[in-house]
């Protein structure tokens, strides 16, 4: 029986997104003050922070608006050079979960998707199916893919095709 997995696409207002950049000099202080994610990881629940670089994070809010997260940055990072911008309309978030999720993603990227290398709480800004994507491991076989909003349908179609190929390859000859 071929695997199916659930692909859900979430965009604002389901999630609020804030892009936070800090000056290189301030990055260490900012990480301590706001408990920002270390390299290649996520941190926190709501807001959750996704590591995008040594001075750049994406803050994800599930039950609060972007304005609340921006205000939290302003107070928490007072005196540190930073900017926090609402990016809720910029991204689509696709969530995939299922037994073949790792195999399907590996078909579009050179990352190591094995559990021991990419486990829950991992965050990889990378290239997937030719487009820029931030891949977050949300569970054992669950991933969230943050892509530019206009690529949501393209990536949804690519995931469906990739799963069909993985299923066909697994069929007995």
């Amino acid at each position, binding site marked *: 029986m071929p695997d199916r997995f659930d692909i859900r696409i979430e965009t604002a207002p389901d999630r609020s997104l804030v892009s936070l950049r800090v000056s290189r000099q301030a990055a260490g202080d900012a990480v301590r003050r706001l408990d920002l994610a270390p390299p290649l990881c996520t941190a926190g629940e709501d807001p959750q922070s996704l590591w995008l670089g*040594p001075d750049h994070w994406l803050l994800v809010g599930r039950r609060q608006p972007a304005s609340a997260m921006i205000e939290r940055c302003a107070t928490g990072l007072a005196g540190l050079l930073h900017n926090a911008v609402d990016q809720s309309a910029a991204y689509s978030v696709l969530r995939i979960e299922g037994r073949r999720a790792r195999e399907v993603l590996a078909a579009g990227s050179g990352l190591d998707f094995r559990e021991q290398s990419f486990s829950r709480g991992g965050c990889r*800004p990378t290239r997937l199916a030719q487009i820029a994507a931030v891949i977050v491991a949300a569970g054992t076989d669950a991933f969230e893919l943050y892509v530019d909003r206009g690529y949501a349908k393209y990536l949804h179609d690519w995931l469906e095709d990739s799963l069909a190929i993985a299923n066909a390859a697994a069929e007995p000859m």
Partner: protein
Amino acid sequence: MLRIPCPFCGDRDEAEFRCGGELPREIPQPGVDDDAWSDYLFNRDNPKGLVHERWCHSFGCNQWFNVVRDTVTHRIHAVYRPGEPRPALDGPCATAAKSGG
């Protein structure tokens, strides 16, 4: 496809990066003549062997860093961050003799 060790993200496929070309020598001081300035802008050593070049991890952390790559074998010998001194490495002949593939 090269595998490039980003100093922030680890080994990634070449397709995640943008090559910034050979690292120029020091930027000239203000007030140098046109010949010196144009030499800085347009001339590069283009060695057969180890080259110091800049790469940007465009699809990842978006950081620039420097790579020492052998232009004959494509083997990457060292990675260092902008502003750090160039690593002291053997010349191309010595490296080729040791590398063994």
